[in-house]
């Protein structure tokens, strides 16, 4: 599973469609469409990215919605929780050391994405970055600005900053590599990205982790933060069937019981055919109804344990056929 967690979202459909098709061609599995906000947050925080894109997409590709907030002033972020609820992933782009410190220590975000093509006026310190990594916040390296750079300065800064990040995170723990490409031309295949990272000093294994494992960690923790109970337990859709389908076998069982009864009654009738004169009145209507009800409940009781056995969970007698799955 390869992840690209930074694909700039554009309103132009054709451009986006080509980009998405190209990402599929390159072999990515999960793609996060990014909307960038800067300065003061607008009043309306709803996500402009539609959940289903308005064109046919490759079936293998999964889409996430991400927001990148450019943080220039440490005091302007009291609505971040609202913002993070509207998107699948929230990334923060600090612009100076103060905002980076704040993002590392306290801000409730999933990713810290520095603009590495600029010359940052400070060194990364493990103490600061380590705090963020311990909290589960990952750092992002965007490679595409270096590829598209016309002058050498942006590329040089990118490489210098990446080396600094790798050093400060003790060999590249908790790094995520993504593209942030303005055009489809700047996307590279996962193996190419891993090789680039390895040339920059990240190491083959860490590079692969940065495209697969760490990126997956970001998406999973982000999802858990938003939907789960205390970020620990989440109920995942476990392939349970819709309401009607679960009821259908119970009904059929009752019918079968009824049919059996009828057969019995028939047999009784045929047996009692010799006693024709006695005219054995079949079961009274009230009794019949009672029996039917009983058969129905019995049928359901019969069905319930099998359902439990299949799903393996039973809470206070109430069948719960959603398997509770622990996520890491």
């Amino acid at each position: 599973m390869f992840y690209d967690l930074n694909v700039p979202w554009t309103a132009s459909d054709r451009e986006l469609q080509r980009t998405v098709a190209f990402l599929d061609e390159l072999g990515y599995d999960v793609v996060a469409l990014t909307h960038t906000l800067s300065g003061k947050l607008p009043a309306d925080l709803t996500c402009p990215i539609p959940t289903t894109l308005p064109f046919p997409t490759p079936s293998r590709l999964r889409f996430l919605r991400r927001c990148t907030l450019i943080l220039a002033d440490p005091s302007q972020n009291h609505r971040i929780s609202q913002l993070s609820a509207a998107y699948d992933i929230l990334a923060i782009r600090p612009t100076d050391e103060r905002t980076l410190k704040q993002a590392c220590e306290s801000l409730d975000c999933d990713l810290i994405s520095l603009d590495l093509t600029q010359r940052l006026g400070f060194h990364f310190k493990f103490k600061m970055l380590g705090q963020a990594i311990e909290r589960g916040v990952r750092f992002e390296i965007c490679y595409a600005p270096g590829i598209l750079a016309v002058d050498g300065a942006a590329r040089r800064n990118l490489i210098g900053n990446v080396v600094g990040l790798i050093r400060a995170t003790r060999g590249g723990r908790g790094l995520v590599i993504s593209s942030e490409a303005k055009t489809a031309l700047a996307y590279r295949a996962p193996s190419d990205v891993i090789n680039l990272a390895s040339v920059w000093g990240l190491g083959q294994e860490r590079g692969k982790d940065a495209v697969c494992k760490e990126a997956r960690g970001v998406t999973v923790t982000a999802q858990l933060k938003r939907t789960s109970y205390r970020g620990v337990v989440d109920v995942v859709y476990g392939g349970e069937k819709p309401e009607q389908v679960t009821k259908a076998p119970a009904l059929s069982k009752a019918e079968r019981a009824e049919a059996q009864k009828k057969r019995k009654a028939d047999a009784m009738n045929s047996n009692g055919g010799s006693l024709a004169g006695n005219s054995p009145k079949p079961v009274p209507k009230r009794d019949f109804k009672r029996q039917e009800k009983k058969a129905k409940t019995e049928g359901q009781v019969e069905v319930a344990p099998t359902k439990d056995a299949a799903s393996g969970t039973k809470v206070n007698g109430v069948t719960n056929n959603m398997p509770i799955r622990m996520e890491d």
Partner: protein
Amino acid sequence: MVRVKHRYLVATFLYPGAPTATSSKESLSQVLQFNQPTSDRLDAPLLLKAIRQGVAELFGDYGAGVVSPSLRINYLSPATSTAIIRTPRAHCQLVWAALSFMTQLPDPIAQPCVVRVVRVSGTIRKAEHEVIRRAKVIIKRAQE
């Protein structure tokens, strides 16, 4: 037996850029657009020069010097947009990085493209197998 060790990179050229204005290309599927044939003007010396330049730009004289003794284009097929490039074993990553940083074909053609390394192999035989396998896969995908 002591011999010089190489790595063979199988590279493909992909064209994600906007299709040219002709309406016939518009109707082609995305797979065919990305894997369209390369211009016939691209030949081995031209590509070799571009790679040398790229390595020199990224890694300076050191990179160019370290790579140059065994750098060679073993196979180049514009029709399938595939190339096999021989590199020294210890420094194949430098050539690979230079290919990744390429954004267009060398100068007289100057068509925007993405170079993707699909296989790194120690023997040219396996590299050739990979080229054949990929050609088959792409034909199958194009027929769908």
